[in-house]
């Protein structure tokens, strides 16, 4: 794509897609969507579509990788070949490997790992459609899937992208904004209750001022993501309760 000469990424307080600078794209999360996984979640965030499955805690194998003090987190972020404008090779690329590493580390702080020595908690992420911000979408979905799996956690991990396009610091960049000549992209993940930062990456040229401004937006964004995550879990919990009552009435099968 040829970069456009001059674009106003924010005009009269509105972005190209009509959002305000501090407005997220619409988020929809559903917990417990897969039958065989211990926990799962499906998330749509703008055009991004993510499916996450969680297995574990289960015995870490081969044995020599086991940690006698805590569970390991194995995070697997993959993009479907058709989820990007140009077909992706089915082989995991270096970008996917790096995202898997930092995302798995971001989840560690949230989970009471020390309760499950010698085990692994496996998180499998598949990106089905993408338009900027898939790693934060995946991470937000993953912590819902972990909760759905009943894994004890300090807090959920809420993640959001923030950055700059056309000189404006904005929340939750879409692809057109990420393609701005001066674009800055800063994915960030927090434990919303304590504001602890568990994932932080950044690409592009930022002044310290801009960074500080973007942190404000990020905090605001994470709060909204957190709300959507908790809503998904509430719904799942209510459904599970309903099912439970139904099955109690019907007697065990």
């Amino acid at each position, binding site marked *: *794509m040829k970069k456009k000469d001059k674009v106003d990424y924010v005009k009269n307080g509105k972005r190209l897609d009509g959002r305000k600078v501090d407005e997220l794209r619409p988020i929809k999360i559903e917990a417990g969507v*897969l*039958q*065989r*996984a*211990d926990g*799962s979640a499906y998330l749509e965030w703008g*055009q991004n*579509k993510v*499916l*996450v*499955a969680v*297995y574990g805690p*289960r015995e870490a194998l081969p044995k020599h990788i086991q940690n006698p003090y805590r569970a390991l987190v194995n995070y*697997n972020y*993959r993009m*479907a*070949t*058709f*989820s*990007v*404008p*140009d*077909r992706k090779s*089915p082989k995991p690329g270096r970008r996917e490997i790096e995202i898997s590493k930092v995302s798995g580390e971001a989840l560690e702080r949230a989970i009471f790992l020390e309760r499950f020595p010698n085990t692994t908690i*496996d998180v*499998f992420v*598949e990106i*089905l*459609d*993408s*338009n900027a911000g898939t790693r934060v979408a995946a991470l937000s979905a993953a912590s819902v899937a972990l909760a759905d799996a009943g894994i004890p956690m300090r807090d959920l991990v809420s993640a959001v992208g923030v950055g700059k396009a056309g000189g404006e610091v904005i929340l939750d960049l879409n692809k057109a904004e990420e393609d701005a000549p001066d674009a800055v992209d800063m994915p960030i993940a927090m434990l919303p209750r304590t504001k602890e930062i568990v994932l932080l990456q950044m690409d592009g040229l930022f002044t310290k001022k801009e960074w500080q401004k973007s942190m404000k937006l990020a905090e605001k964004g994470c709060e909204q993501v957190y709300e959507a995550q908790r809503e998904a879990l509430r719904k799942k919990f209510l459904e599970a309760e309903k099912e439970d009552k139904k099955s109690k009435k019907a007697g065990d099968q």
Partner: protein
Amino acid sequence: MEETIWDLRTDKTIAAIKEGKRLDGRKFDEYREVKIVNDISENADGSARVLLGKTDVIAGIKMVPGDPYPDSPDEGTISVGAELLPLASPSFESGPPREEATELARVVDRGIRESKAIDFKKLCIREGELVWIVFIDVYTMNHDGNLFDACSIAALSSLLKTKIPKLEADRVVAHEYAGKLALARKPLLSTFAKMANNVVLDPILSEEKAMEARFSCATTEDDCLCAFQKGGGGSFTESEIDNCIDVAFKKAKDIRKLL
């Protein structure tokens, strides 16, 4: 422990089959409910998610301009990939495609290719120089048996919705399209499992664990057989195969209506 659970379920499955029943109450020649959701990915040129009971798979199409094979300079081609995603089952590990994934991809490929559903000559852009390669990738999301048929439905459904990208200077223009992919036929796979001398259509996972042998048969709406695949350590008699073929013709017709 998981093994023990499956052993018990296998015993139950076999006992039921011997009484002419299936654990989920279906008839021997009955498909589970089929749900198809199309266009699940905007970046794909065609896509579909298919639920076959609880079995859950996704197919996506990407049309990519590429070099023709030297021995067919005026023909494009298809390329089918399959990944048994670890999301689908606690026993799938992530990693390079194993032989199960290879077989799945190749059986889905043959059903489409051999039916001549796609006229490869119509995929030619400039003879000897540029042709369309239709990449069909299927992913398993939840495995409750019969991935073959679920992936076959998902692949066909995706192809039926596939738009041909617009080209500019031989490169794809993102999200602009020049037309639709034409399909001459609608091939569908029907898969059977044999156990305790009975043959059932569309096995669920517990039936697959119990089965001795598997037979798959791709049929078209104009009463053609276009692909077979027998798997598993057991055997079929000719008359069992004969009967499977009849059921396959009939049941594929029903699914074709959902597309």
